[in-house]
């Protein structure tokens, strides 16, 4: 019977467990969990901070998930992989494997900034521990500066809002969510949130001086609590040192295999096939991690499964503003604004490449499906698709089949 070892205890690992078990009931699975916590959902930390959910609900499949699945959970940090002996060494102990998954995820990026050591209360915002630490400080009170207006920074701000109203978010970029959205969308978000958040944009950090942040412009911001949300970096070391092919992330094929035999990788740590750009890409998304992990798991258990429909996508809700996007923002752009809402559709040769919806976004999944399937929009009008959509936009036979149950879209 195969021994499966999974390094990392998050979504990709969950996917892998489901994948392996779907192919091999009561398989022998060991999870090496460096974070020393049962499986929980990282994206929930901001909601927990915001008290939209509770700490125990963050264990979103229950604290006993591993037990329920019959998986051995070892709360230890993996330090080394020996591909010859086919063992993983974690905190001195050896864990032999037949098939190995590396889902080490990523860790927050903290650049070398002058005077950072002089800051008293500083946090990153990535793990449950980060959240708990930040929450402890927030409860004691104090003004918050968040450096980084990306998704993590913004969601963090939403959580912090629960504790005090004066939040400053600084970013060297000219607008919030620089990576996840387009300039147009970013501006709209900034506009709609400016009344709530004190944005400092185009603001490159120069140095810290105790409780003072000094920007290149000479502008100064004082704070009690600092949150650094400057993005994350894949933790590729374990594989890099044994010669895996690594770019920014570990390179895997559509079966989630690394170039090393019996070693798979999935989740935030990989650069995997992305269907819109049709190239390897570092996606670091929740569904990508889960489905990537599941694909890996199935292949580890001897099936032949390929993950070919992975695309960038994001859905979130910032201070009541719903932001949804998928695909790539390339090709011909069609924009509409309805009241405060903003919608944009990107097409290339009648095929939808991407979209952004701010505000109303009912049945957006239909657009996502067009992207995934590279289905031509044919005679459909992009503006109408943005105005609203339902099953009537699918080709009749596909729709009939879907409703008749013969075929899944």
């Amino acid at each position, binding site marked *: 019977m195969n021994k499966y070892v999974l390094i990392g205890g998050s979504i990709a690992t969950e996917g892998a467990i489901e994948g392996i078990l779907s192919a091999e009931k009561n398989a022998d699975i060991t999870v090496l969990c460096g974070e020393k916590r049962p499986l929980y959902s990282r994206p929930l930390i901001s909601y927990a901070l915001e008290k939209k959910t509770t700490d125990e609900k963050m264990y979103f499949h229950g604290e006993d998930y591993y037990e329920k699945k019959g998986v051995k959970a070892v709360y230890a940090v993996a330090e080394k992989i020996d591909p010859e002996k086919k063992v993983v060494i974690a905190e001195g102990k050896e864990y032999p494997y037949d098939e190995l998954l590396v889902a080490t995820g990523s860790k927050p990026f903290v650049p070398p900034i002058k005077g950072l050591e002089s800051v008293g209360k500083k946090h990153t915002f990535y793990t449950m521990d980060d959240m708990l630490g930040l929450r402890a400080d927030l409860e004691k009170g104090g003004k918050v500066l968040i450096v980084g207006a990306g998704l993590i920074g913004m969601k963090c701000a939403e959580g912090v809002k629960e504790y005090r109203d004066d939040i400053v978010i600084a970013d060297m970029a000219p607008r919030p969510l620089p990576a996840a959205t387009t300039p147009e969308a970013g501006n709209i978000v900034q506009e709609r949130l400016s009344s709530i958040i004190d944005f400092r944009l185009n603001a490159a950090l120069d140095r810290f001086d105790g409780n003072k942040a000094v920007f290149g412009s000479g502008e100064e911001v004082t704070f009690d609590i600092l949150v650094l949300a400057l993005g994350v970096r894949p933790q590729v070391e374990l594989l890099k040192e044994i010669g895996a092919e690594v770019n920014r992330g570990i390179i895997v094929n559509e079966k989630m295999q690394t170039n090393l035999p019996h070693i798979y990788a999935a989740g935030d740590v990989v650069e995997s096939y992305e269907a819109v750009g049709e190239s390897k890409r570092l996606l670091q998304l929740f569904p990508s991690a889960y489905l990537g992990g599941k694909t890996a798991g199935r292949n580890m258990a001897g099936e032949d499964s390929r993950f070919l429909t992975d695309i960038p996508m994001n859905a979130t809700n910032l201070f009541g503003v719903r932001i*949804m996007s998928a695909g790539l923002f390339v090709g011909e752009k069609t924009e509409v604004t309805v009241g405060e809402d903003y919608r944009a559709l990107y097409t290339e040769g009648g095929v939808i490449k991407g979209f952004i919806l701010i505000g109303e976004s*009912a049945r957006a*999944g239909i657009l*996502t499906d067009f992207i995934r399937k590279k289905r031509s929009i044919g005679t459909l009008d992009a503006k109408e698709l943005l105005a609203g959509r*339902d099953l009537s936009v699918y080709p009749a036979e596909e*729709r009939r089949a879907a409703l*008749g149950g013969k075929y899944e879209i």
Partner: protein
Amino acid sequence: MKKIYVKEEWCLGCHLCEFECTYANSGIGNIVLALKDKEIDPNVKVQSDGKITFAVSCRHCDEPLCISACISGALSKDETGAVMVDRSKCVGCGSCVMVCPYGAVRITKEGTANKCQLCMNNSCGEPLCVKKCPNGAIVYEEK
């Protein structure tokens, strides 16, 4: 598993299913009290391509994208394979809406996800849209 299927050639576009669905999930024992002067937000929606109408509700996919995208564990499959939603867990992020190819999941005005659960967690026993469809356009069967 037993699923809801739509025979669009028999759909009359009468929209009864939408009202019966709302009633079924209202938790109110009387249809008038359940619907009178209320905005309805049913789990089944009658849609039309201009020529033909059809009632759309959750397809309960074998590999539901909504579940793989759900960050809160609010969406899950029950033992029968039906996709169920635990609204107390949902944080309303909208990932399910973003991925559902049928547009069959929505965020309600309470800010959490909702969808067809085959009337399994209400008192109807069988999906009321099926039971009340006047023309057999919605069926509940094994395929």
